[in-house]
């Protein structure tokens, strides 16, 4: 099946099996292997990408359903010599070890901070109608869809908090 994906600001024409997931299209057909396959069933978050501004599990969606969608992968957030604030903070706080869940964590965190800014509540939000902030508990709950077996959660939370604080101060 033929369709187009707009990835990291660039249009890509694809002709793939309808069964091809967005994740496999990125990894196997477009050479964008930053998005990782950890479980292929939406159970780990390693494949997280941002579609039309929202973080999703790219393993649980068909590529052909995203014709014309705006997709941002970790490669689009920053390059090694030009890292995003979150990417830099992950390095500084050692918010990763093996690095396999890391692109998913960073894509997830990038969009998650926007969700907080938009005032979305979470399961640990005390008052559903009050302002939410990027507390440790809020970040931890909102990042719980990204497993890290190296268990770098403390570093991940520190990295995200730092960026949230920087953004709030800016």
């Amino acid at each position: 099946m033929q369709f187009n994906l707009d990835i990291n600001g660039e249009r890509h024409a694809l002709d793939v099996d309808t069964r091809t997931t967005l994740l496999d299209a990125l990894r196997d057909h477009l050479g964008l292997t930053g998005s990782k396959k950890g479980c292929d069933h939406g159970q780990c978050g390693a494949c997280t990408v941002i579609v039309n501004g929202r973080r999703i599990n790219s393993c649980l969606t068909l590529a052909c359903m995203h014709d014309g969608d705006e997709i941002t992968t970790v490669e689009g957030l920053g390059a090694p010599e030009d890292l995003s604030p979150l990417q830099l903070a992950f390095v500084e706080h050692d918010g990763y070890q093996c690095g396999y869940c890391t692109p998913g964590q960073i894509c997830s965190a990038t969009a998650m901070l926007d969700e907080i800014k938009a005032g979305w509540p979470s399961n640990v939000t005390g008052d559903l109608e009050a302002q939410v902030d990027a507390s440790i508990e809020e970040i931890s709950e909102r990042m719980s869809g990204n497993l890290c077996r190296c268990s770098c959660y403390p570093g991940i939370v520190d990295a995200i908090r730092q960026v949230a604080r920087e953004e709030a101060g800016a």
Partner: protein
Amino acid sequence: MRSFDYVRAGDTAQAVREAGSEETRFIAGGTNLLDLMKLEVMAPGKLVDITRLDLGGIEETADGGLRIGALVTNSDLAADARVRRGWPVLSRALLAGASGQLRNKATTGGNLLQRTRCYYFYDRGEPCNKREPGSGCAAKDGVNRILAILGTSEHCIATHPSDMAVAMRALDARVEIEGAEGRREVALGEFYRLPGDTPQIETVLKPDDLITAVLLPAPAGGRQIYRKVRDRSSYAFALVSVAAVIEVEDGVISKAQLAFGGLGPMPWRDADVEAALVGAAPSAALFDRAADILLAEAKGYGGNDFKIPLTRRTLAAVLTQATEASA
């Protein structure tokens, strides 16, 4: 995953037209359907993509309720200011489910149709009457810690995994369905079917029926609580959950709407439990009696026996919280 034909529907009528066979499935969020297709637990020959249909809005209805389009994502529904204010138990239930990423994709209609998380349903190497009618139920004598204690049959002990649907059941939601014969509404309580000897049939939907919306009646008021008990603090299915809408007036319970997750093949509600509560003064003894009624027919299968006392304790805690004088 077997090959399938893919059709993108432009409008609801086309979607309904394209469906109509057992081989066809609608796809929206896809978070459960693709999960199951990858394991060939489900193997449709045709997918009708309904994501471009105009079913993504939340509108207020004339009676003060809400009409929630079937394609509204779990995230949008949970964050909707009206829902947070008027139907907070629904926001809470949604936020207790899955992960941020999944809630961004999963839709209202799809969430209602989630399949069970029974290990044996997911495993093509094992018998399962829901997946392969007549093959048997491996769960009854297998590992069944997460499975049902209410509404089961000798053919199936699966649970329905949704959190959202539990809150909706407590809120008396109705499902709006578009089919070949036009539009109809079904109360959520009548939408699901017990497994009996046909556990493969889970709802009243016909193959060409498309859920177009969920309707919530006007805000129920009261104190609204969703409590989910699970094996880790986030990103896990409920072992037991309770959605409660409780109102106390003059020291007596005046309203009690209770639904339960993790217990049965559908979001569970028991009118007798609510009847026993309404008109009575809150007390530990009353809550115990409510649990007695709820669990009168409960049956454990070994590994899930603990759900019976767990439900009793959780229900009591929720009712205690809901009936406490506000601080």
